[in-house]
């Protein structure tokens, strides 16, 4: 009955592990294949004709779909540059192709289900393992080859062959070193040194803060309370893409905000890094590098949209939520003689995600 416990099972004949096939002494018998049940299309010739009609109608419909798709290609041009034309072109060619394919598929399936013979067949499996005689022959083949070549016996040949084969791959692998640049490429002595490059940005003493992407300089008075400026170094805005514009920008992006000076918690060391409540922080998230661009002017929080790290602008952009591990580096700023905001110095640490060599 339903809820036998183990003791009864143990009483039955049982093969010990590891086969784990518990042979039940009186297993339930397989009733064999059920009798074949005829379908309507087998019994009723009208149903069969109807099914056949459905099938070839679907195939003809598919043909119509293909023709429609070709027609749509011609009837819905897009060269007039209107978005609606592109939408129609996309839609009608697509519907035509979809119709062609779907009707073909449905027709084929219907044919196989309703008209083709649905008698079940039985095919015996054979053991996956080769027959003993086959395995013997295979072993013999290896044995013969070993005997004739002396591979097993001639250890010097064998070992040196293996060493040579493995070594022959290494030059190829070495060539792939060229995927990374070497030093002194393009006259830059550290072009091949990732750690050195990661530790420097375009920000340096006297570099003006300009608007991203237009490149116009910013006066301190422009930065009103509650505003957020997306900022790049002035020299960057004149760099071309071929000369590394995006690579430098990826390290140099900065977000600048104005708070009330009394809201800022500043250490002694950083007292002159802000200017009259204006603070500037690296926009590269210290988690994995997305731009930390969301500024909430009332809570003074910065939010990175990629993994939701949050930084507190009032307290040196320390991490208050999310997976980031380090605060955002701060850019020390002041104003120059003409009143435009400039960097007092570069960053005092590498920007962006942590890396092994960072201390």
């Amino acid at each position, binding site marked *: 009955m339903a809820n036998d416990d183990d003791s009864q099972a143990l009483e039955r004949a049982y093969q010990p592990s590891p086969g784990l096939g518990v042979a039940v002494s009186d297993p339930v018998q397989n009733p064999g294949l059920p009798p074949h049940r005829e379908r309507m299309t087998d019994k009723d010739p009208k149903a069969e004709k109807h099914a056949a009609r459905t099938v070839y109608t679907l195939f003809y419909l598919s043909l119509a779909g293909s023709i429609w798709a070709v027609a749509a290609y011609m009837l819905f041009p897009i060269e007039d540059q209107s978005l609606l034309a592109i939408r129609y072109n996309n839609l009608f060619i697509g519907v035509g192709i979809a119709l062609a394919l779907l009707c073909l598929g449905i027709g084929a399936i219907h044919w196989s289900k309703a008209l083709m013979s649905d008698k079940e067949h039985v095919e015996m499996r054979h053991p996956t393992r080769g027959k003993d005689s086959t395995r013997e022959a295979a072993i013999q083949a290896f044995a013969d080859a070993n005997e004739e070549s002396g591979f097993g016996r001639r250890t010097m040949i064998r070992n040196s062959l293996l060493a040579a084969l493995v070594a022959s791959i290494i030059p190829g692998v070495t060539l792939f070193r060229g995927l990374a640049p070497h030093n002194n490429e393009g006259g830059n002595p550290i072009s091949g040194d990732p750690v050195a490059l990661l530790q420097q940005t375009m920000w340096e003493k006297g570099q003006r803060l300009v608007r991203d992407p237009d490149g116009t300089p910013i006066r301190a008075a422009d930065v009103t*309370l509650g505003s957020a400026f997306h900022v790049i170094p002035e020299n960057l805005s004149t760099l071309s893409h071929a000369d590394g514009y995006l690579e430098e920008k990826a390290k140099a992006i900065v977000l600048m905000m104005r708070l009330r000076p009394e809201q800022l918690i500043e250490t002694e060391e950083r007292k002159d890094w802000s200017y009259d409540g204006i603070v500037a922080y690296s926009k590269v998230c210290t988690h994995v590098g997305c731009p930390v661009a969301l500024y909430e*002017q009332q809570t003074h929080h910065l939010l990175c949209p990629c993994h939701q790290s949050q930084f507190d602008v009032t307290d040196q952009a320390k991490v208050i939520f999310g997976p980031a591990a380090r605060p955002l580096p701060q850019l020390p700023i002041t104003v120059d003689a003409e009143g435009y905001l400039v960097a007092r110095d570069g960053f005092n640490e590498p920007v962006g995600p942590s890396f092994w060599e960072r201390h």
Partner: protein
Amino acid sequence: MAREKKRRSNGRRSPLAAAALIGAGLLITGGIYAGASAAMAAPGNQSTASAQLTVDDGEKLFQANCATCHGMDLQGTANGPSLYGVGELSVEFQLATGRMPLQMQGPQAPQKEPQFTQPQIESMAAFVQSVAPGPTYPSDKTLDGEGDVAHGAELFRVNCAMCHNVAAAGGALTEGKYAPGLSNTSALHIYAAMVTGPQNMPVFGDMNLSDEDKRDIISALLYQQEAVSVGGFTLGSLGPVSEGLFIWIFGIGALVAISVWITAKSN
């Protein structure tokens, strides 16, 4: 008993009758309610013949609806900030988008049905402006939508998309706040939000984004609002998340259903 399964000649109601009766009742009561509330709803934007209301009307409206939280002299209270210097632009924005009057305290003021007519809103805005001037309405040129769409889109991506999403579908902020979607926002309100920086939105004054920049951004947004989405339905413009959900529910769902059909025994 099995034999009563199919007969209904003995006058018993179909079990469906009860469901039909309840359904009809719900439809009728619901319809009456909908009709009544529509009839009693605010008149909306119908400007009457006496369209212009005065600053004094605005003052009265202000005292009746806003002063409890913002103070009789706009000085602010524990429940609402001071309105000194917010300007008529800000007042029009908050009232016309329904954010004000605030229904209840929460992470931020949600947009809802405006509670005042446009003339009433303008009068209240004029009143606030008269007490303590602030940002005012833009010129028509700024709102005309004929600016440089490519430049505006670029500015939008740098300054706005991180909160509002590149397709202006909106996005999340911290602690339950959010940047709303902009697909139905008017040019005036786009301008007003940039200038006044409502709640946690930063302020984008003319020194940050010039008037021409703002015109470009507004043009780009208006273009996006009106543009046909060339590829088809946008699934909310939320990117890979909605696409993934869609393909699992409808794509794989359809394909699994098809596979069930393929292997089902024919009739």
